[in-house]
């Protein structure tokens, strides 16, 4: 393992010795010869196989234990309370509770998607090292935390009529419908 780290460390050392004002292009263009390589087959393929097998065994175990939900047959006359979107869209539903629909339903999602696609073109910082990317990492982390928080709130803390009800987390009696 130590030999694995050394080429990268050596390259970094060489860079530092040229002085900070000569900020050389970042690690992306590091030369091939500096890197130790291994044959893909079997080294990598073996790992992929193990990862796939692990995932398969895990899913099989879950599938034997836990049934996928199946409620009553669809009926447009009976609205469940609360009616929730699938969990990955429940964050969006949560936004709709808090902001005008045009913002939450259209402006925010469009902004997120467009901004995400533009990220590599807007981020002009060539370095890939975390210590050089504090702003980018902070922004992305805030985004991730917000997204997770909104999904969790929407999925776990919204009760009847989609009202905010954190007591649900602790087995509040109003909990009626699975998500």
């Amino acid at each position, binding site marked *: 393992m130590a030999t694995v780290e050394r080429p990268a460390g050596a390259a970094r050392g060489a860079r530092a010795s040229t002085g900070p004002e000569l900020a050389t292009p970042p690690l992306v263009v590091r030369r091939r010869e500096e890197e130790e390589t291994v044959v*893909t087959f079997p080294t990598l393929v073996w790992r992929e196989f193990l990862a796939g097998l692990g995932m398969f065994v895990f899913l099989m175990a879950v599938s034997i234990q836990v049934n996928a939900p199946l409620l*009553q047959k*669809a009926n447009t006359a009976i609205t469940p309370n609360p009616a929730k979107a*699938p969990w990955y869209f429940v964050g969006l539903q949560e936004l709709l509770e808090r902001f005008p629909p045009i913002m*939450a339903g259209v402006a925010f999602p469009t902004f997120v998607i467009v901004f995400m696609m533009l990220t*590599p073109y807007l981020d002009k910082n060539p370095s890939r090292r975390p210590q050089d990317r504090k702003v980018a990492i902070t922004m992305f982390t805030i985004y991730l935390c917000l997204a997770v928080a909104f999904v969790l709130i929407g999925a776990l803390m919204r009760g009847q009529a989609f009202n905010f009800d954190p007591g649900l987390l602790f087995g509040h009696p109003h909990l009626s419908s699975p998500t």
Partner: protein
Amino acid sequence: MSATPGQANPVRAFVEQVWGSIFRHGLPSTDKVAARTALTNFFLHIHPVRVKRSAIRVSYTLCLGGLSFFLFILLTITGLFLMFYYIPSVDQAYQNIKDLQFVAVFGDIIRNMHRWAAHGMVITVWLHMARVFYQGAYKPPREFNWVIGTLLLLTTLLLSFSGYLLPWDQLAIWAITVGTNMAKYAPIVGPYTRYLLLGGNQVAQGALIRFYVLHVIALPLIGFLLMVVHFWRVRKDGFTGGL
């Protein structure tokens, strides 16, 4: 049956010829053989022959891209089995799913796996995106592969969403009602988009057949094509490797 001296056993020779015509090289005893095996095998050809050791450390990719792809394959296979039973009609769909869950042999396992793998894929794709971001792997020359990745994320979400309706139970129909109601809010095009998606104003037969076609044909095809390009570019741009 024993072979005459000086002449190979014909059965053995036949088996060897067949085997040799499929796999041109033996087991990877040396790096050279291993390289040949990877080069001449269609499925292994998705990989370069050699990779940087730092790039395939499990701690670097956390296997997340690979696992997303694995789940996609698993979903395709389990989905195929589900299709043997499932009829996209409001009169039959629910009963078909019930039969799968309670009657068909292993039907419950297949359905459960399809469901949990779908949720799992949303999570792995999302985490894969996070790892790519934190490692700055979207920076030149990989900008466009990040864009393709974004499209893959959207495709994954839509695949999951379109599948949600198919069991035609209370969970399905109301989740899709809530979900598609969000589309209504877009100015001008909103209501039209919703109508187009549902094939009507309500989640009914029109919506079921549309979601079905999107779910089993259109979106998987789009997703597959995007993945092919995604992987091609990972190879052509080279894999980032350790920081």
